[in-house]
């Protein structure tokens, strides 16, 4: 049904949207691109010639791509079989693992990295344990370089494949597999010729997410990348050195690679859409693993993965109670204390850090929530006004612009905002954000608003359109239809999306490290500086508090989404 609103409402919505997108997405990204082609006020390709002639830059491009591809392959190898195992079979321990499976997704990358160092680093629990057990002179391994990065990336990103493959498997009508079996296909053939082709969209989406996340990865390469050069690190390094031209040009390269990946994946995905069969299907049932040996094996696999998943977090908890200086060559810390937490909550400096992160994340999440309603309302009702200004393709353009910050690595978003709002310009109507408190809330908003918009859109899609029609036929005006029918049905989803944006912003590090100022020092910066000062217990305590806050928020978000 066409929703008829007052023309001025649509015009106001359109104005807000255009202003935010112009100033938040179009202008910063354009100004980075423009600056990368400029030197000394004139147009030139010199920046590109310069960076592409440097071996380190080429090397960093190649290793970023290589790490991303390697990560995709490893995550698929781990995630897809696990999804099949847990989605299609039932055995003791299945539920336990399934509950833990997505754990790495909610760990902030920096906290995950820190936990990993405590567990697997050369002076971590595992290495010390083996060293002490076998009485070795040196630690048995060093957590450095490619193997370390691939291991950590697989741990943190395999859930993309696990979750999306699982969801894809649940969507597939069970009767299709039954039909294939009745036509004489073996169960292997069923997987290969019936299930996998239908899973292609899910697998592609997972591959894209993994690729993009790996391209944007920063904390792990920074803390244990060793000699491996990554684009995100090079950009950070160039900015630290004050070589802004180089940082900006490398930022453009990173952005182009990420957007190219998005376009390639989406183009391919478009060719592999399967019309969902509208017929009533047989309900899917998980097969019970009958044979004793297979059952034991499946349970062992599940238990092993459960332990692997929990260990880093458990380590973090343990270390957060370790007394300063009590953990040198021993396997486990020898003395335990509450001092780390006491410091966190007693110290004015530490509580200021929490206050900063909370305020900035709350501002960003609340703004994203309001913004998501603007976008969705505009997409639904602003048809005529928007078409007049932007032509018929405006919906696609709008959705694309909203999506852009999501597709760009955090490094790119931070660098572009810093570049665009470094000085005020009356001509462009820009203002100074760099060096102020507001730069981080703005960056957080831009990075995470696509998440909230998607959450709200997903909730909206679940609302049966005939409900609003029914409300209309019963005499409810457009506003009443929205407030009394649509809003009560969609707000839990939108708020859950806002909560997710809030907790991700709370642990944000990649962008924060580039543009933070003393006035808005966030939690992640505090963790990194504690780590640098070898205050391991304090760093871990920060991480634990973040994890607790995130867990509570995710539980609330999960409740909200199931609420209807």
């Amino acid at each position, binding site marked *: 049904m066409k929703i*008829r609103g007052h023309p001025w409402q649509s015009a106001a919505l359109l104005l807000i949207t255009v202003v935010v997108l112009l100033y938040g997405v179009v202008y910063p990204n354009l100004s980075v691109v423009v600056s990368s082609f400029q030197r000394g006020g004139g147009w030139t390709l010199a920046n590109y010639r310069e960076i592409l002639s440097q071996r380190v830059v080429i090397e960093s491009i190649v290793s970023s791509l290589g790490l991303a591809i390697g990560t995709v392959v490893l995550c698929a190898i781990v995630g897809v079989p696990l999804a099949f195992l847990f989605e299609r079979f039932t055995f003791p321990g299945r539920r336990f693992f399934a509950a833990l499976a997505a754990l790495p997704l909610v760990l902030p990358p920096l906290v995950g990295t820190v936990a990993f160092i405590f567990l697997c680093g050369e002076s971590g629990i595992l290495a010390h344990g083996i060293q002490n057990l076998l009485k070795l002179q040196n630690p048995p391994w060093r957590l450095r370089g490619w193997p370390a990065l691939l291991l950590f990336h697989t741990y943190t990103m395999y859930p993309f494949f696990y979750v999306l493959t699982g969801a894809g498997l649940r969507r597939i009508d069970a009767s299709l597999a039954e039909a294939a079996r009745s036509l004489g296909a073996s169960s292997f053939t069923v997987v290969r010729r019936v299930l996998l082709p239908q899973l292609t969209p899910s697998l592609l989406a997972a591959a894209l997410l993994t690729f993009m996340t790996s391209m944007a990865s920063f904390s792990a390469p920074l803390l244990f990348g060793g000699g491996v050069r990554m684009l995100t690190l090079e950009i950070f390094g160039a900015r630290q050195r004050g070589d802004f031209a180089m940082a900006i040009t490398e930022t453009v390269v990173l952005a182009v690679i990420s957007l190219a990946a998005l376009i390639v994946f989406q183009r391919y995905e478009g060719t592999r859409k399967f019309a969902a069969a509208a017929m009533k299907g047989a309900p899917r049932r998980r097969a019970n693993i009958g044979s004793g040996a297979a059952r034991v094996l499946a349970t062992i696999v599940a238990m092993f993965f459960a332990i692997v998943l929990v260990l880093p977090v458990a380590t973090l908890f343990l270390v957060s109670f370790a007394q300063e200086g009590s953990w040198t060559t021993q396997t486990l810390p020898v003395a335990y204390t509450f001092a780390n937490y006491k410091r966190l909550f007693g110290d004015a400096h530490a509580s200021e850090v929490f206050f900063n992160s909370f305020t900035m994340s709350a501002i960003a999440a609340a703004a994203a929530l309001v913004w998501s309603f603007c976008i969705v309302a505009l997409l639904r009702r602003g048809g005529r006004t928007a078409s007049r200004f932007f032509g018929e393709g405006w919906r696609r353009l709008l959705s694309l612009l909203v999506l852009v910050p999501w597709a760009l690595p955090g490094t790119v978003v931070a660098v572009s905002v810093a570049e665009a709002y470094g000085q005020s310009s009356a001509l462009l109507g820009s203002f100074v954000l760099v060096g102020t408190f507001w730069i981080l809330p703005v960056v957080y908003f831009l990075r995470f608003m696509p998440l909230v918009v998607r959450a709200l859109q997903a909730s909206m899609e679940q609302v049966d359109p005939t409900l609003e029609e029914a409300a209309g036929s019963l005499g409810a005006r457009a506003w009443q239809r929205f407030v009394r029918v649509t809003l009560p049905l969609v707000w839990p989803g939108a708020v859950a999306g806002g909560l997710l944006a809030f907790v991700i912003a709370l642990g944000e590090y990649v962008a924060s490290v580039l543009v933070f100022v003393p006035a808005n020092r966030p939690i992640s910066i505090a963790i990194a500086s504690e780590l640098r000062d070898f205050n391991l217990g304090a760093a871990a305590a920060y991480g634990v508090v973040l994890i607790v806050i995130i867990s509570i928020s995710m539980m609330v978000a999960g409740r909200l989404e199931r609420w209807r």
Partner: protein
Amino acid sequence: MAFLSLKNVSRSFGSTRAVADVSLDVAQGEFFGLLGPSGCGKTTTLRMIAGLEKPDSGSIEFQGSDITNLPPERRGFGMVFQNYALFPHLNVFENVAFGLRARHKTKAEMEERVTSALELVQLPGYGKRAVDELSGGQQQRVAIARAIAIEPALLLFDEPLSNLDVSLREETRSELRELVTRLGLTAVYVTHDQEEAFALCDRISVMVGGKLMQTGRPRELYEQPAEISVASFLGRNNLIKAMRLSSSKTSEGEFKTLEGEHTLRLPVKHEDLAPLNKPVYLAIRPEHVQLSTSSNGATNTLPATIREIVFFGATSTVHVDANGLLLESLVLGTNGLKVNQPCNVILSPEHLTLLKN
């Protein structure tokens, strides 16, 4: 002046013409049916009456005033949706009261009208229930209660019974008709089920491919279909391709069938309907195709052979071949009839209908 009147209404979706030039009148107090196969445009027509779709051209008038551009909330028509469209976040009472709240009724009046609406659909005391606790049939009744609670000027039904199982459907059907009559309401009812339309409606419009083919009382439509599409959609029909013979008189047409080359006689009312030397279709219902093993010299007796007998319980369908002309006959008993047996087929003139084009 008609109560509700559609004038040359058209609606396209992209390049498909969903509704093409539909005109119809509904009288006050009438139970009016829109019947047709799926995708024929009947639901789109109903949605245009409700105001949920806007016609590309043409106009809709209600009690003499043009409502073509009136938004649905200002029409005051109650609508019952195919999937009921009950608000999942509201309980039964709140669902039924929804339209009353939009009209800012007082609490007491709301209470009274919801209670009486729930009583009318035989769900008294169900107000506090959540809608997803109800069975399909009960949800259906809530949807009807919600639509009648606003005392609608017109009641619109979009295949409301199609989600119910057969026995419940027949029971609800008669209750629905009784309720609408008792409240003195005017209703427009969309369905693809011919039996349902015949049982419920005073008058029916048959739609095929976006066009309105024929409007009439159920019996008229069944016995005197004007078009091939109507004849073949409403129940089973034998369609016989034939050519009018030049020797036929104006009051009694003589036709030669193209298959079998039999001569058939039937009364012709409109001379213009049967031009010479142009193939036309004659229709006869299977139940009117008589089979006989003896010859009694009746008009239109054709020699034939029985090809197949399909047993349906109370009735059987007999497929016969009259020298290449294949016909279906519906008989009550198959006494004495056997496959490959010769017999006589009698197509009595009063049951043969001449179709347009």
